[in-house]
């Protein structure tokens, strides 16, 4: 609760500081707000504060952990995006303030206890991101990304809302615990509930970008500014998946016979389609977008094999490790000069800037799931947890991990190879080095600390 208020207040403060037109001051305010929010979460980890009279948001230790993850990723992206944001001196603070507001919504989305707060959180999370996707005002691709993201997002919101209304019609309550009790006590479930679950499932698949509702994500990821692509892939997806888990694995867990078969098909389709499309890509951010569709497929395994808290831990570790890789790769993508960020323009990265090249390779290997890195532990935990219930699905996922290694290694080879033409890579800002060092430490030791 304290972190929520601090984030929101520092967002407003950043907006006012932005009037001074000094990007550095905006950066300091925004990152100080995030840092204070993060430290308060760490300090109150065992006894998180809650609202006295309001039960829509409940902060227990799990949701504090998720909130902390969101704050960490937002802080890292704010720092590494500073070089991009400060290009427009008048609006640096506005962009950061919007990121803070969006993170506030993400906090609501991981700690809600009724559908009402979930919906409000989702909207607070999404609406600033629609704006931020279009921050390159003169760039047609950014505009297009913003429009596509807005319309798909708003459409998904409408579907979600109708689903919530249907579930309310079936159960007469918005509270997650009461819906769970309703599903577990009634033998024959009303058809309203089935329709509602189906509509909510569709809108969730929209939001996290799973097949068949993935079509927007490559376009949006490519067109948006790199820092916002990172935000979408790391924070929005994280919050979406935690809410997905809370609703489907916990609240609708009793009705899993109904939605689990759909999700199995979606998971398999996401893995294959994401991988097979990623192999053909020549654009770096499009590659990340398609590989993130594959990763959605893996993470759906954790949602499918629901059994209480152990699963949410494996899902968290998976998304946490994935988020660090995303932050690294999108920070690298911010360094590419030309407008279309082809993979070929990364040529010679590791030779020109050995440290950045090293961290980028770590991130790619971690995404591919190579053992000592953090990503391996995430994948291992999700797969091993799911193996008991869905052995075939896990085997398919492992085959797909193998396919994935191909295009990750191809990108690594490009980074390592000699560049005989003019380099396409900008001189990194000092904050890039800071962010990349934090991520490198997390990727290397994360698996041994958090698992």
């Amino acid at each position: 609760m304290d972190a929520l208020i601090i984030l929101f207040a520092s967002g407003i403060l950043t907006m006012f500081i932005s009037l001074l037109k000094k990007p550095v001051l905006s950066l300091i305010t925004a990152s100080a707000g995030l840092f204070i929010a993060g430290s308060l979460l760490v300090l109150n980890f065992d006894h998180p504060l809650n609202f006295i009279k309001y039960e829509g948001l409940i902060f227990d230790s799990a949701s504090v952990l998720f909130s902390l993850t969101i704050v960490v990723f937002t802080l890292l992206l704010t720092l590494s995006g500073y070089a991009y944001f400060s290009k427009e001196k008048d609006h640096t603070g506005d962009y950061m303030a919007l990121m803070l507001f969006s993170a506030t919504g993400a906090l609501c989305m991981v700690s809600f206890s009724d559908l009402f707060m979930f919906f409000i959180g989702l909207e607070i999370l999404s609406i600033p991101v629609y704006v931020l996707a279009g921050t390159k005002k003169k760039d047609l691709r950014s505009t297009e990304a913003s429009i596509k993201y807005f319309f798909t997002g708003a459409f998904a919101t409408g579907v979600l809302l109708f689903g919530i209304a249907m579930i309310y019609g079936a159960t007469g309550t918005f509270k997650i615990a009461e819906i769970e009790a309703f599903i577990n006590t009634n033998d024959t479930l009303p058809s309203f509930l089935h329709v509602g679950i189906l509509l909510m499932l569709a809108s969730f698949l929209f939001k996290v970008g799973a097949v068949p509702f993935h079509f927007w994500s490559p376009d949006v990821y490519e067109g948006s500014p790199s820092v916002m692509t990172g935000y979408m892939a790391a924070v929005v997806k994280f919050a979406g998946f935690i809410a997905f888990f809370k609703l489907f694995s916990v609240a609708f867990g009793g009705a899993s016979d109904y939605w689990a078969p759909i999700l199995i098909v979606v998971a398999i389709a996401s893995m294959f389609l994401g991988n097979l499309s990623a192999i053909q890509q020549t654009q770096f951010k499009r590659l990340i977008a398609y590989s993130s569709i594959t990763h959605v497929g893996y993470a759906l395994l954790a949602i499918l094999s629901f059994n209480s808290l152990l699963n949410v831990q494996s899902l968290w570790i998976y998304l946490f490790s994935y988020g660090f890789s995303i932050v690294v790769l999108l920070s690298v993508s911010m360094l590419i000069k030309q407008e279309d960020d082809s993979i070929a323009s990364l040529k010679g990265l590791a030779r020109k800037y050995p440290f950045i090249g090293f961290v980028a390779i770590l991130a790619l290997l971690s995404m591919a799931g190579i053992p000592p890195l953090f990503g391996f532990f995430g994948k291992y935990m999700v797969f091993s947890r799911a193996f008991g219930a869905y052995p075939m699905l896990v085997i398919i996922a492992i085959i797909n991990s193998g396919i994935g290694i191909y295009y990750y290694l191809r990108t690594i080879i490009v980074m390592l190879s000699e560049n005989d033409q003019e380099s396409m890579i900008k001189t990194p800002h000092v904050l890039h080095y800071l962010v990349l060092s934090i991520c490198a430490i997390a990727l290397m030791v994360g698996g041994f600390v958090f698992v």
Partner: protein
Amino acid sequence: MILQTVFDAGVSIEYYVMLASILFGIGVLGVLIRKNAIILLMCIELMLNAANLLLVAFSTYYGKADAQIFVFFIMVVAAAEATVGLSILVMAYRNLRTVDISLFNKLKG
């Protein structure tokens, strides 16, 4: 209160569900087939309002006020969303001189 009297008069909940579903269906169809971005925005509003209608009907049916409060928040959110959507459209219009979404096709692959 008005809805309550209507319920007492014998209009059952099914009719409200049907009406809301039809409105929602019109909204979804509009989003899927129309190309003008302003019409798309209107269709999305229609979807949200269908959900509002359904929530209010169920709220009266159960005799609880929570869904009606939810509806107020949905209206606020819908207004915020429309504001953001229209400003994005203004930006797009400045760049491309059109709001036909089928012409936004720079990103492919």
